[in-house]
């Protein structure tokens, strides 16, 4: 792990996105959301469990020549609710955005309740979760009304 006084050396990218303040250990999930696997051709930088003033430990993902759409940003918000996204052009940050959980998460999370009608085969509906905020973020399935924590999400659709 990086110490406080050590500079964090991650190569800057020319064009693309840099996702910072990812909760420690969640970077692989972010890569999965972005569809980055062994077939991805552009450069990807991944840092895990590096020092952070704000979070103590964090992950960072930088991807060359890549943009993000709203759905991907919403998915990232679920696994890494503190993440910040920087859009980079010619080595400069042209836009910066903190991810925000929407009030409703549509077609992203598979309900972990096997008896939920949203998991029933061939029913023409999609999963919908309402975001409830108290101390921690909790999600409530529109159909079975079961409440789950972020850590209970097993599958993203």
């Amino acid at each position, binding site marked *: 792990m990086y110490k406080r006084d050590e500079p964090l050396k991650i190569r800057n990218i020319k064009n693309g996105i840099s996702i910072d303040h990812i909760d420690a250990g969640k970077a692989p999930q972010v890569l999965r959301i972005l569809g980055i696997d062994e077939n991805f051709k552009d450069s990807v930088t991944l840092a895990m469990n590096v020092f952070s003033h704000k979070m103590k430990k964090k992950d960072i993902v930088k991807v060359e020549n890549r943009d993000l759409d709203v759905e991907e940003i919403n998915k990232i918000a679920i696994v890494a609710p503190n993440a910040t996204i920087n859009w980079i052009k010619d080595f400069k940050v042209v836009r910066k955005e903190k991810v925000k959980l929407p009030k409703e998460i549509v077609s992203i999370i598979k309900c972990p309740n096997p008896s*939920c*009608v*949203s998991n029933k085969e061939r*029913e023409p*509906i999609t999963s919908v979760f309402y975001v409830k905020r108290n101390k921690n973020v909790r999600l409530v399935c*529109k159909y079975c*009304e*079961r409440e789950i924590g972020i850590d209970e999400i097993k599958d993203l659709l």
Partner: protein
Amino acid sequence: MEWSKKHIISIREFTREEIDFVLEKSEVMEKKLSAEKKLDLMKGKILALMFFEPSTRTRMSFEAAMKKLGGEVIGFGSSEITSEQKGETIADAVRVIEGYADIIVIRHSAEGSARLASEFVSIPVINGGDGSNQHPTQTLLDLYTIKKEFKQIDGLSIGIVGDLKYGRTVHSLTDALMKYDVKLVFVSPPELRMPRRLISELKEKGVGVKETTKLSALKGCDVIYVTRIQRERFPDPQEYERVKGTYVIDSTIVEKLKPEAIIMHPLPRVSEISPEVDKTPHARYFQQAKNGIPVRATLLCLVSGIKI
């Protein structure tokens, strides 16, 4: 209050004012039904009962309620005789039935099935029980029974006994009771305690909660709501027999209750209330089942936009 709910899916969507409105109207309905035996408020309307799971009380009381309102009833009572066996989706089944009826009551083991149904039809849908999720009409008749007895729900101490972990009836009832100023006493074996989600929600709302394994905690309660402990919840049959024998309301428990306390049960009961209790002035479970008629008749009228 103007009634605006088209569907009755979950008690969680009801405000306290809406619950109170249903209870007030149910009282009016009960008087009307006892005065006239049969009304014609729903004359010319057809109620479809889509029971993919077996049910006696809910199905028959909806049927009786509709008939007392002058309406007609069609439907089925088991998935074996339905198109579901042929692979039809719930979404398709309700759209077909929409062509035959004016209101649908649906019971299905899939949780959220009633909400799904309500999204595919333009006629009112009433949830007759969706798996272990919700059974809102049962909750409303439970509350009606309590209110009828004590004139109000606020200020009461309510003990809930039995399977508090899996029982949808007790979850729905707890969801509704947290809208009132009540004290709740939960009595269950440790493995069947009330879900933590509901306990923390009750505490956030400032509802007084006591959780215990001892039936003696019921002695100060105004209402004792008993539920069945199901054998299939226990991997060890011996453990089930032990627990089952521990949570029985019999004359020794009844003797210690407040004189005005009432005992309720959503029925069917097995052995959790001993038959000797039936004759005591505390027993209300048969009256409670009977209250399903005015409450369900009220709901049928309200979702149809018929004034009571």
